[in-house]
């Protein structure tokens, strides 16, 4: 027991030295998160609209698409895209674009469900009132339903954001140099697992904690009392 404690030493310098590669990786982590969300919000809206389409076939395909991406592991989706693009389409995209594509497809499926639920939560008579005032369907959606739905949609979008930020760590599997990839690379280089991985965890904590708190605050502020 005593020798165990003696063996365990924490090299503070190694912990601090990890900051450079982590900072480099943070750029990839953050830009991937931001770009994915920018693309996945409009795409999620489109998917949500397709799911309420007048054509049953379009409805079925959109629903199946959303179910598929929501009910299978994200990492597997990423691998699948990573392998199928070059082998079936002859497309050898850089890892960042593969990751962006995979995350966008995945997150837009989750967003579409958020938008669908948000619109469905607005009482039907709101739309009827708009129609009775002589508005068109599009006007009702844009001026009555969507503004009310926004309030209910923002909190789940925020928690999707928080998960997305964390999930970007899996791009290390396809060789994209994010924080996790850089830390595991440094680890195998210096053999200072404890210091480097603690630095990685702390880096995520510093970046992720404020996001989680903002998401909480949005939940409390925008809560709709029924």
């Amino acid at each position, binding site marked *: 027991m005593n020798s*165990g404690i003696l*063996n*365990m030493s924490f090299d503070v310098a190694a912990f601090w030295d990890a900051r450079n590669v982590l900072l480099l990786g943070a750029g990839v982590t953050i830009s991937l998160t931001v770009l994915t969300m920018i693309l996945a919000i409009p795409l999620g809206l489109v998917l949500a609209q397709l799911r309420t389409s007048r054509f049953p076939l379009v409805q079925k395909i959109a629903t199946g698409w959303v179910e*598929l991406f929501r*009910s*299978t*592991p*994200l*990492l*597997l*989706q990423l*691998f*699948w895209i990573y*392998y*199928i693009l070059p*082998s*079936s389409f002859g497309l050898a995209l850089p890892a960042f674009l593969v990751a962006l594509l995979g995350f966008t497809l995945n997150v837009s499926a989750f967003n579409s469900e958020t938008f669908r639920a948000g619109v469905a939560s607005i009482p039907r008579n709101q739309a009827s009132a708009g129609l009775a005032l002589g508005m068109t369907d599009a006007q009702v959606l844009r001026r009555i339903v969507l503004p009310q739905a926004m309030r209910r949609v923002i909190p789940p979008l925020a928690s999707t954001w*928080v998960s997305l930020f*964390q*999930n970007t*760590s*899996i791009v*290390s*599997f396809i060789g994209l140099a994010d924080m*996790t990839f850089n830390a*595991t690379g440094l*680890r195998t280089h210096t053999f200072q*697992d*404890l210091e480097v*991985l*603690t630095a*990685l*965890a702390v880096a*995520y*904590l510093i*970046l*992720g*904690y404020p*996001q*989680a708190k903002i998401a909480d605050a949005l939940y409390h502020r925008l809560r709709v009392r029924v």
Partner: protein
Amino acid sequence: MFDSLQGLLGHASFLLSGLIVTIELAVSCSIAALILGTLLGLARAYGGRMANAVIGVYVDVMRSIPQLVVLIYVYFALPILVQQRIDSFTAAFVGIVVWVTAIVTEAVRAGVLSVRTTQMRAGLALGMSRRQAIRRVVLPQALIRMLPVLGSTLIILTKDTVLASAIATPELLRQSQIVATQTYDPFTVLTVAMIIYFLLILPIARGTDWLYRRLSERAAG
């Protein structure tokens, strides 16, 4: 397509062993995380300010760090801290449970606190002890409200078992990747794996929906 499926047939038992590990991991982690999360959630709601603060820090830390990073930490860094080798299945189990328990804790706390305090007082007024009132009055009502969140948490857990491939746990995704390097045909084996995961996860989603409908009907009636 048919030929490539036939090529997989020789690897069927290898893939099956991966599927079994995936199921073992998902089931054992679910049970452990549900039990621990319920205890911690109750401790947070009723255990006083100190317990609330300490568990709150744990929950916030886990909510800020990715599941993958926790897994890698448990496998590579924790053995140095505890001076003890940890095999990859145990590391995967610990890493997943530690991370998912935080989500369950929050769900239980929110569910319990959403039950009106008058319910608790009514129980106490009937001569129940605090413990009895929590177990027989508050928890059953909270459970119904928690079900959707718990269901999606179990789905996240099952999907996240694939991350254990990063620490060489021989679960389905890792075994599929090994097969892919042998057949030179990642497309087929990954598609098969995708279908298997879909079939694993769909019953969890439908099952919790069904349970929720049944329980909420019974509560309403």
